[in-house]
């Protein structure tokens, strides 16, 4: 039912550039997109900026949404691409600063968290690579199917499954080791 409503709203946006319909789509999905980006970046302000960019890109590219798969799946693909583009830009900026002789303190933000000061989930996410984090969040926090994650990340379904498996193993192994250390 919700999917049908999404498709109807998308049709209105594509056929008549209906900004009110697009506003409704944002209202429906902003929480998922912002949560996804917050978990991916570990920075609320940056995540919200990226979410704004993501919706602007979504507006520009919405005619490319074919209706195959859920709209939120497509939206998270746009969000993930926006995140990767922003990361590439900040990396390039850091390189330019470095070439110009500045101290490279503009390095792309590395997801690090102080133990004991953050919720468990952030500790978990900190041990994952960026790709693993994105896929795990899409799967467990956003409830996307393996097929939808495959579409969003442009990875084969088999790879998505193995990344999820690897991510789970990593968390399990890492935190069992930590438990022993502290225990």
């Amino acid at each position, binding site marked *: 039912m919700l999917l049908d409503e999404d498709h109807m709203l998308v049709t209105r946006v594509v056929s008549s*550039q209906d*900004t*009110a319909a*697009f*506003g409704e789509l*944002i*209202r429906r999905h*902003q*929480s998922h997109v*912002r*949560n996804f980006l917050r*978990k991916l970046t570990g920075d609320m302000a940056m995540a*919200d900026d990226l*979410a*704004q960019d993501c*919706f*602007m890109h979504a*507006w520009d590219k919405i005619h490319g949404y074919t209706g195959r798969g859920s709209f939120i799946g497509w939206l998270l693909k746009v969000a993930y691409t926006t995140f990767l583009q922003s990361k590439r830009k900040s990396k390039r900026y850091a390189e330019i600063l470095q070439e110009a002789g500045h101290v490279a303190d503009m390095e792309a933000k590395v997801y690090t968290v102080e133990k004991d000061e953050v919720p*468990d*989930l952030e500790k*978990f996410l900190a041990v994952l690579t960026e790709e693993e984090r994105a896929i*795990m*969040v899409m799967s*467990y*926090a956003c409830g996307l199917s393996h097929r939808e994650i495959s579409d969003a990340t442009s990875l084969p379904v088999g790879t998505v499954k193995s990344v999820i498996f690897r991510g*789970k193993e990593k*968390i399990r192994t890492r935190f069992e080791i930590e438990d022993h250390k502290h225990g």
Partner: protein
Amino acid sequence: MLEAMFESEPIPDAGFSEQITRRIRRRVWVRRLALPIATVIGTSIAAGPMVDLAQLITSVANVVPQELLGSPAALLPHMNIVLLAGMIAATAYVGAQALWD
């Protein structure tokens, strides 16, 4: 267990969607206005050279023997107006098509 761990509170909209919608509406207006404004400015800049070109073509046409042109002599003095109208019509057609897209 992981699902529970990954669960998070829904983030309230708190004007977020309205902010983006406003940005989009602004962008749509800028895009709508950009082409007509550019067309008007472009036409006003190009009008002078287009008239000069039409006059040049007319003068060349007057020099060329009429048998070669195969057109009625009466039309030649108005050739510049015909050419100018044709160019404006072509520009308007291209502009209208771009607007339609």
